[in-house]
């Protein structure tokens, strides 16, 4: 099968959905001729024109706010916020408008919109350009939250998200944009709410998201040499969450570690741990562990950043402590 990058996969999803449905449009800062800060929308402006690939002034509030208004009136906007860290500037539009409008109106409106935004560290971009803020969004009923780790998933999930009638927060990892993977030429969809077993194993389950899926797979490969068999589950969407697949795996391996790049405190990992404790406690041979970023802002200097963000060695160490 052909291999394309994560960024190319996302671009293909956008292109295909814009061709399929003329209500779909892109809006954001520098998404047009410039092609997006990470080059994801490159070429779409030339193909679809400025009406459907809309360059905006620096106005996160209006990018999301106008998308809410347009989605409520028959369009399917795909706004881009250049860095997830900037979502704070549009947080009222996310929390009080997009997430709640359908509910507050008694179900009388649909808000089909997908907010694409990059998360994650690794570029020495420091504390205001490196966060993983998925827990902000999973805490808000009314939103769906998607976090793909591979080009295949990114394309299939984005297509599903664009066709979904709810506001979806689509979190892309900036260090994954250049990563290649197999993506079929033919059309496919990855439904929201279905986790993927990225690697089968029998001694321990790692539930990992986004970039941490790759680091966990690397750790699993190392551990295999020492005779430890690791199963890696990628939820792919945090809401809806495929609890069943996670629990099924834990019941099989009897041990679980949650690995994510967001800081540990009040992170989404706590939610997964709670689900396992409530629904599979009697299957556990050891307490569930978390491997997450340390509870600090993301620092600039590479050795500091590497220390704060979980590394393969941290995952290996955690597994060895448990098995």
């Amino acid at each position, binding site marked *: 099968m052909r291999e394309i990058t994560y960024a190319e996969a996302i671009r293909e999803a956008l292109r295909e959905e814009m061709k399929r449905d003329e209500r779909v449009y892109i809006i954001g800062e520098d998404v047009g001729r410039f092609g997006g800060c990470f080059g994801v929308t490159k070429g779409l402006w030339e193909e679809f024109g400025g009406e459907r690939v809309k360059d905006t002034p620096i106005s996160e509030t209006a990018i999301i706010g*106008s998308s*809410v208004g*347009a989605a409520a009136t028959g369009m399917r906007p795909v706004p881009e916020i250049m860095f997830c860290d900037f979502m704070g500037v549009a947080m009222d539009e996310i929390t009080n408008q997009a997430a709640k409008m359908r509910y507050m109106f008694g179900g*009388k409106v649909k808000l*089909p919109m997908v907010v694409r935004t990059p998360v994650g560290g690794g570029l020495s971009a420091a504390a205001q350009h490196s966060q993983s803020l998925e827990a902000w969004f999973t805490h808000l009923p009314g939103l769906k939250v998607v976090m793909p780790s591979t080009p295949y998933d990114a394309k299939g999930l984005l297509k599903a998200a664009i066709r979904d009638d*709810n506001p979806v927060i689509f979190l892309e990892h900036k260090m994954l944009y250049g990563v290649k993977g197999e993506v079929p030429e033919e059309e496919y969809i990855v439904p929201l709410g279905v986790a993927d077993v990225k690697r089968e194993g029998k001694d321990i389950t790692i539930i990992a998201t986004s970039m941490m899926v790759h680091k966990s797979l690397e750790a699993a490969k190392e551990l295999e040499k020492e005779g430890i068999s690791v199963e890696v589950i990628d939820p792919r969407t945090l809401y809806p969450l495929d609890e069943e697949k996670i629990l099924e795996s834990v019941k099989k391996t009897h041990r679980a570690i949650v690995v994510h790049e967001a800081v540990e405190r009040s992170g989404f990992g706590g939610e997964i741990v709670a689900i396992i404790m409530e629904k599979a406690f009697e299957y556990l041979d050891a307490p569930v562990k978390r491997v997450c970023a340390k509870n600090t802002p993301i620092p600039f200097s590479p050795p500091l950043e590497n220390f704060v963000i979980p590394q393969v060695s941290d995952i290996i160490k955690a597994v060895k402590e448990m098995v």
Partner: protein
Amino acid sequence: MYTTMLRIRRFEEKVVELFAQGKIPGFVHSYIGEEAVAAGACAALEPTDYITSTHRGHGHLIAKGGDLKYMMAELYGKKTGYCKGKGGSMHIADVDLGILGANGIVGAGIPIATGAALSSYLQKNGRVALCFFSDGASNRGTFHEGINMASIWKLPVVFLCENNMYGISMPQKRGMAIEDIADRASAYGIPGVVVDGNDVIAVYEAVKEAVKRARSGGGPTLIEAKTARWRGHFEGDPQIYRTPEEIEEWKKKCPIKRFEEKLLKMGVLNEEKIKEIEDMIAKEIDEAVKFAEESPYPEPEEALEDVYA
């Protein structure tokens, strides 16, 4: 427009009374005194046009054709209300009537209206979005971002600031250094118009002109309608920030009385006709209250519905 203003006034009077009796939960923000703005503005719109409203939204919704029964039932938190009891006073919407919702967040409707206008523009359906907001909202970032974006793309939207001079207790004088909010239009390269917000004809004319401009591709207009709310920010507000005399002065400028006198002089109205309209509205309101009171509350489990489509 006369009937609309009167309908708003009587509805609000009833709501104030019912709230005082403890029949309506939550907060109520009365629109009494500002009726000419909603009535004049919505009269200049087509039924398919959109509005975005505010936390003080009852008047806008009635002027855009909202059904008093469903509004009252929503205020009561009943299942039959516009939002099945999930929205209440600050969140009533009827997308079929182009009402994209009252909004509990000051200034939040501004970019939403820009989005509705962008949607009309992309779908080429000729609809205009009219955004109600107030003096307090004009100090928020949403005001700048929403109007700037609408202006650069010449979107079909009318920004209508109902300047009632107070953001809760903050008088306009202390909240901004300018006198006319319409002056801010120049920052976006769009027309800024000041109208007497208690003169329903003046509001209608200004909005009509702005709607025409919007629909023909001329882009947005910022209209500032100067008016006043007679009651507190919310029911129960002690209003320590202004004098009773100030309110009395505004009552003398009642937009309904003023229009009524004009229509009487013109011979369009007479006492008999006024009584007829009053009776009709009284009946509508009685029916709305009866409907609300007789309607069932939602089942508690219904709280879990309508979160996702």
